[in-house]
């Protein structure tokens, strides 16, 4: 353990500044931070197998019945499906909007471009609560208050900036001569977009898409404001349940399953994007 830890610290930014005692304290601090981040999740996971219907830690006894009580979990499964659908559609919309906006922002010059760019980034910076309130007010003006479509639109507003950012980064690196070459070889603009531009923007689209999906899937604030019966996302439902009925063990079980799902998803993504990254860097590295 210390064999592997010490060389890391030596090559770190504090190299030469602290002695062995300082180094030990530094290591303990890092360990404490890791524990602090992981502990709540571990607590929930462990507590979810408790025999008691209310949440206790350490758990008393062991049971898996909170995971198998399908009647109790029915609403959560519905909310999970709704969350998946919203996240998938919000990701698709964010990708479409993000691609277009990023290409315009990187390639066109027009007055007010900097202001427009800042505007598109504002959902990242502004308080989500303000955005949710504003959206609720705005949507009630046009007569569509809650439910699937408002939730989807609001999620897209929050997710698109991430796609804009990542695609912009890819688009800046894209050599315009590639598209000009395709044009001169006889490809019409739509064909050039499909054959050349999109494949080369793939890293940006992929990482932006993943961020958009996770942010939509995890969002509580906006989902809570715009939820309707039968159109409530899982995080919003969990929040509602926790505040209405208090912390019960079913909540912990749902959280445990959600954690497992997200880990699985990240594993799949890592597989896909990890391989993708290897392929692109193999090409880029030898240029």
């Amino acid at each position: 353990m210390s064999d592997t830890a010490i060389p890391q610290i030596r090559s770190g930014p504090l190299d030469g500044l602290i002695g062995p005692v300082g180094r030990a304290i530094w290591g303990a601090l890092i360990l404490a931070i890791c524990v602090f981040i992981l502990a709540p999740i571990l607590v929930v996971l462990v507590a979810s197998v408790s025999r008691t219907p209310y949440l206790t830690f350490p758990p008393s006894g062991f049971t898996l019945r909170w995971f198998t009580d399908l009647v109790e979990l029915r609403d959560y499964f519905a909310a999970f499906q709704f969350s998946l659908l919203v996240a998938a559609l919000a990701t698709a919309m964010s990708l479409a909007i993000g691609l277009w906006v990023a290409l315009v922002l990187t390639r066109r010059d027009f007055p007010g471009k900097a202001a427009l760019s800042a505007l598109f980034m504002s959902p990242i910076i502004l308080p989500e609560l303000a955005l949710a309130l504003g959206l609720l007010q705005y949507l009630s003006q046009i007569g569509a208050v809650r439910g699937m479509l408002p939730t989807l639109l609001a999620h897209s507003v929050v997710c698109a900036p991430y796609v804009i950012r990542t695609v912009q980064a890819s688009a800046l690196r894209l050599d315009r001569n590639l598209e000009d070459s395709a044009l001169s070889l006889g490809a019409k603009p739509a064909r050039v977009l499909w054959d050349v531009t999109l494949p080369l923007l793939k890293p940006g689209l992929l990482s932006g898409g993943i961020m958009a999906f996770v942010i939509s899937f995890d969002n509580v604030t906006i989902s809570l404001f715009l939820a309707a019966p039968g159109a409530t996302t899982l995080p919003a439902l969990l929040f509602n349940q926790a505040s209405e009925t208090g912390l019960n063990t079913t909540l912990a079980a749902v959280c445990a399953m959600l954690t497992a799902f997200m880990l699985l998803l990240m594993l799949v993504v890592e597989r896909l994007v990890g391989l993708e990254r290897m392929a692109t860097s193999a090409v880029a590295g030898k240029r």
Partner: protein
Amino acid sequence: MAADLLVQGVTRRFGEQLAVDRVDLAVGQGEFLGLLGPSGCGKTTLLRMIAGFLVPDSGRIICAGQDITTLPPFARNLGVVFQNYALFPHMTAAENVGYGLKVRGMARAEIVTRVKAALDRVNLAHAADRLPGQLSGGMQQRVALARAMVIEPRILLLDEPLSALDKNLREEMQVELRLLQQRVGITTVFVTHDQEEAMTLSDRIAVMQAGRVMQLGTPEEVYRRPISRFVATFLGTTNLLEGKAARVAGNTVTVALEGGAMVEASAPVPPTPGSPVQLAVRPESILLRSTPEGVPGTVEDVLFQGHRLIALFRTDSGQELRSYMPPSGWRPARGDRAWASWPAAEAGLIQA
């Protein structure tokens, strides 16, 4: 000579900047035309307008009798090779070469045959399945060339295609490119800032500066008889001698040099008698002799370079001249009296 490509009064601005200024060019069928000039002279802008990536503000571009000034690039059927080759990094060499045929909707079997032939022609059949990132610079260059030519374009447009290669490879590719162009007989416009490359490859050279064509002619004409100070100095070392047009008879001008010597020169557009002119003479054309013939002066120094001598000479009227001489034969020494002369055909007449 039938003109395959006509550029008529083409002008293009970028904001206040005049990038290309009323350029006229006529490129003959099968001709290799070099656009030569320093960076920022407008040569690449002109090429991009011919390719269709930019639309001129005014003027016309006519290809094979058809006005293509505002035709989009995908409808022009021109082959373009860029300085950085611009190969599609996510496609193999064969897919790159076949792309133009694929978008034309050609049958797969036909594409395979033509791509193979095109890669064979540039000696790259063995690299068909490699990605551009796995190819050397010279190989990428040849793939780009094959990709541009496989679509049987009306005209080949080359934007500094050799400048990213190292010196030895560049010279090899110059020869290869010239042979390929001759074999296929395709009309070619070639942009470069390298005067040696332009002279090696081109049938004719258009020397550009500040958006204008300063001189258009064969490499020998522009090198041996430049008509402006810019062309004379841009194409290599030159000697400039001040004088006056004493007599004009047709294209033959008798020039009275400072110090009194009279020499002949020819000018495509004769100056008015009595006007001040300059003569541009290359160092290798200047002959120094110990017999009183030509412009008198003193040898100031002689530098030995192996394959030649550089003699630094000052005329009695105070002008400095540089002469390249073979190391054999009469060898001047520092302080010698000598006379400088050159064949009339080797002097370019520059009008102020």
